[in-house]
């Protein structure tokens, strides 16, 4: 399998995961489930609210980060390492 095909599969898989997470959040918002979680604040279930919010943002951030990386690979854009210790040099052009 070529690298391009592998990248394409990764893009599809990650996009599906991202869509599922977005759908879950939107659905819970629409049925009022998220508001019910607000009622848990101050009870012994506060940790669930914290884990839910933080987990979703960490998860979605990672999925989107990898997805963007794979999209860049798929379209053939070359991401180069920056040469930090030569950054202020000129190339002699006017």
């Amino acid at each position: 399998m070529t690298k391009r095909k592998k990248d394409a599969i990764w893009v599809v898989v990650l996009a599906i995961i991202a869509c599922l997470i977005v759908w879950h959040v939107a659905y819970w918002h629409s049925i009022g489930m998220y508001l019910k979680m607000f009622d848990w604040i101050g009870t012994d279930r506060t940790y669930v609210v914290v884990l839910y919010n933080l987990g979703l943002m960490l998860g979605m951030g990672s999925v989107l980060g990898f997805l963007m990386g794979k999209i860049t690979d798929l379209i053939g854009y070359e991401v180069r390492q920056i040469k930090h210790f030569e950054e202020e040099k000129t190339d002699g052009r006017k």
Partner: protein
Amino acid sequence: MTTLSVVGVQINILLLLFIGLAVGILSGFVGVGGGYLVTPALIILGLPANLAVGTSMAWIVGNSIVGTLRHRQMGNIDMKLGLVIIAGTMCGVELGVRLLNWTKGMGFTDVAVLSTLVVILVTIGAYTFREVQSRKAQLDEALKNKDKLPPAMRLPLMARKLQGLNIPPVIHFAKSKITISLWLILAISFVTGILAGFVGVGGGFIMMPSLIYLIGLPSFMAVGTDIFQIIFSASFGCIRHAMSGNVVILIAFIMLISSSIGTQFGALITQYVRGIAMRYVLIVSTLLCVLGSILKLINLLLPVPLPWLQKCAVGITFGGIALVVIIVIALFIMAIRYRRGQHIPAWVVSLVAKGD
């Protein structure tokens, strides 16, 4: 269809997407979290202040992961240094929050916070501006002479002095090529953390110059390392706010979708410009943050708050986001033109990077 109902407030989804995209570009390019722009923007859109702060904190968590993944690919992150900074910053933030609570007890929180923010940012902005102007003059001069290459960026004076202090244990960071006492990094990040915890927003504006001018990191490595450490400080803030029920996850999600694209764009532009260009954009962003804070401070000190002053602060927030994004995109276009051998204004040549 394009509006979202949250705690009885109708919020336009397209506006949320725009804010996410614009602040994402800024965050990816300059390395700041973006809370200083997102929080007031959400308040302006009608979200109560506590929810705006908590939601922007949650958004920063997701967005900084996106930025970290991209900057890591570009070799912009010194993980080892980042982890040491996180240790110092977290302790500092906790002390800063306690200091904030103490001022609350004394009854002068807002004035104290805003005055501190203004003084710190003006000092940092003025120092950065002086350094950047001097460096640009040096680069412009070198560009006039085709054959002569300017020396690689010298370590800032303060960083040279600090790196010269031999307080064991002294650690070498291979990635960023610096050798410095562990205690100094912890002290710098601790003090930066106190300030960030005390003023609440704008932590990136304090951390970025500290990384460049005190620790001696190259500009873009400072951007990546700062975004990396923001994941942890923002997660800490997100936990605190989620415990208080201040996070509206759907809003954070909507902004994250567009900001993930903006952050990619901002991060990738760092390949096309010199570090000095990033520092110029940092100065403009700092200036906007200072202007907004000064207007708020004036309004607080007046016996009766002036509505038009509040409107000016709103204009500066949204206008500022747009202005900075336009500057970044303009720099990118200039860099592309330069690489293609097309004409660009002479004063921009020293800001864009050559292609390989």
